[in-house]
């Protein structure tokens, strides 16, 4: 059992969703740690050829997210939010710890986990820009295991759900940032996964588009479709608006977590204190 860094955390295991305390968790992390090796300048390599410069991206993360609702993964840039999402998406292996999604071991059965998790990447480049939105979605649907007929039906269904309309049939390169974000969300929903991981879902959107995206997340995804959503964000207002629960990450450690109403004021204080400590 990995123990690294756990002393820094409260000993009790925390349940995120207050609405269903007895339900099995959608996401469970136990003692997850990840360190990255940093590149070194040549002069340093020549002086100490066998030394390694390492950065602790995650340390002793214990987290349970019960099914349903929106959990905000809050933290400043470089706090480990994206690393944590990538571990959950199985695109990154942790150095230590256990990762379970809907009871499945993400390290032993990554393909099974990928069937059940939709990932909204913040990178717009993750689409084929020469194809239309619909052609992109049909292609990714095939990789999710949908046959062509089901893929087309699903794309039409998601087009209606997310209001994609005629944008679906425009080349991806001609879409605005807002529409590209919606395409990314549509892609994550193709296989109708019960768990959604979203990395900075409103980054780069204008205020109106960001508000639409938040409403969609709150009302449609978490509300009507009852998805479990884990949103990484550094935007306190956004988290306040959409999240039921909040977890705060800083320098790879989980600093606090709890219901949004209780945790957010503490998170806001923490952010203010951090800003005060740093030179302008």
């Amino acid at each position, binding site marked *: 059992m990995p123990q690294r860094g756990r002393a820094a955390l409260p000993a009790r295991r925390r349940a995120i969703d207050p609405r269903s305390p007895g339900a099995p968790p959608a996401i469970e992390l136990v003692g997850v740690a990840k360190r990255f090796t940093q590149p070194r300048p040549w002069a340093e390599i020549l002086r100490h050829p066998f030394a390694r410069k390492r950065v602790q991206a995650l340390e002793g993360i214990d987290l349970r997210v019960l099914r349903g609702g929106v959990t905000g993964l809050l933290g400043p840039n470089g706090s480990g939010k994206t*690393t944590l999402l990538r571990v959950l998406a199985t695109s*990154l292996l942790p150095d230590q710890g256990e990762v379970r999604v809907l009871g499945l071991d993400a390290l032993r059965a990554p*393909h099974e986990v990928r069937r059940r998790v939709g990932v909204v990447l913040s990178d717009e*480049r*993750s689409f084929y820009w020469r*194809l239309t939105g619909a052609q992109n979605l049909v292609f990714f649907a095939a990789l999710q295991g949908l046959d062509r007929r089901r893929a087309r039906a699903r794309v039409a269904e998601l087009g209606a759900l997310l209001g994609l309309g005629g944008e679906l049939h425009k080349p991806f390169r001609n879409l605005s940032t807002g529409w590209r974000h919606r395409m990314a969300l549509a892609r994550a929903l193709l296989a109708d996964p019960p768990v959604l991981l979203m990395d900075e879902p409103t980054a780069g959107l204008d205020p109106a588009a960001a508000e639409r995206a938040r409403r969609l997340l709150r009302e449609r995804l978490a509300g009507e479709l009852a998805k479990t959503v884990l949103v990484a964000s550094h935007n306190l207002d956004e988290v306040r608006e959409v999240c039921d629960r909040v977890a705060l990450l800083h320098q790879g450690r989980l600093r606090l977590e709890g219901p949004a109403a209780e945790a957010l004021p503490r998170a806001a204080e923490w952010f203010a204190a951090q800003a005060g400590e740093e030179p302008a």
Partner: protein
Amino acid sequence: MSALAKAWAFLVKDFRIDLSYRLAFAGNLVFVLFLVSAFYFLAQMLQGQDLPALRPYGGSYFPFVLTGVAFSSYLGVAVRTFADTIRSAQVMGTLEALLVTPTPVGQIVVFSSLYAFLATSLRVVLTLAVGALFFGVRFPGANWGGAVLVLALSVVAFSFLGVFSAAVVLAFKRADPSAGLVQGLSYLLGGVYYPVAVLPDWAQLIAQALPITHALEAVRRLLLAGASLAEASGPILGLLVFTAVAGPLSLTLFWLAVRRVRRDGSLSQF
């Protein structure tokens, strides 16, 4: 959904992307015509000369070089396409989006390369067709069935070189220099433009370690000399030995490279 349907999805996607670059698509077709014409005129220069090194292949240079150029393009595509696929997905940013789907990474790499192989096959057919229709090349008594079989084996053998190269690109984010070396040596020593028999002894020895030498020897015996599979068994055995050695080695290296990038988090870096 079957792997076949996923393979089809990759083919459709890559065909659409290729077609969206209309000028390059048309340019590739015209290039074949120019290439075959150039070799035809080169062959005209050698017409009527008795070249002992060409006797096992019917004695005429144009069919010899036509088959060499046509089939060696499989080597080029096999060595490059897997690594190019990974590299372009890293640079374009699609790699992580592909790898968070339930489709295994091996399938993603192989299926991403299918279109390149299909396009190459069309180019090979076009090359031979241009040679036959415009320049009167004939393949009397050719063993086409045997040639297709050898071609399939050659593609597998060449692909293991490509998988090795893809592993290097995945792990180190840079083009694999050994791929260029193998490709260069193959064109220099593998009998693409001239028979291996004209090379010095030491170079012929090196040529035996290259899969293209065996592939072209077998294909030419089957197409130009009308040999049976049994009569071409020597070079076919050479291809099989190469495949048996290179296959497990390159697949293991690729698996290690995937594991490495999943550990160091460099999947989408380039």
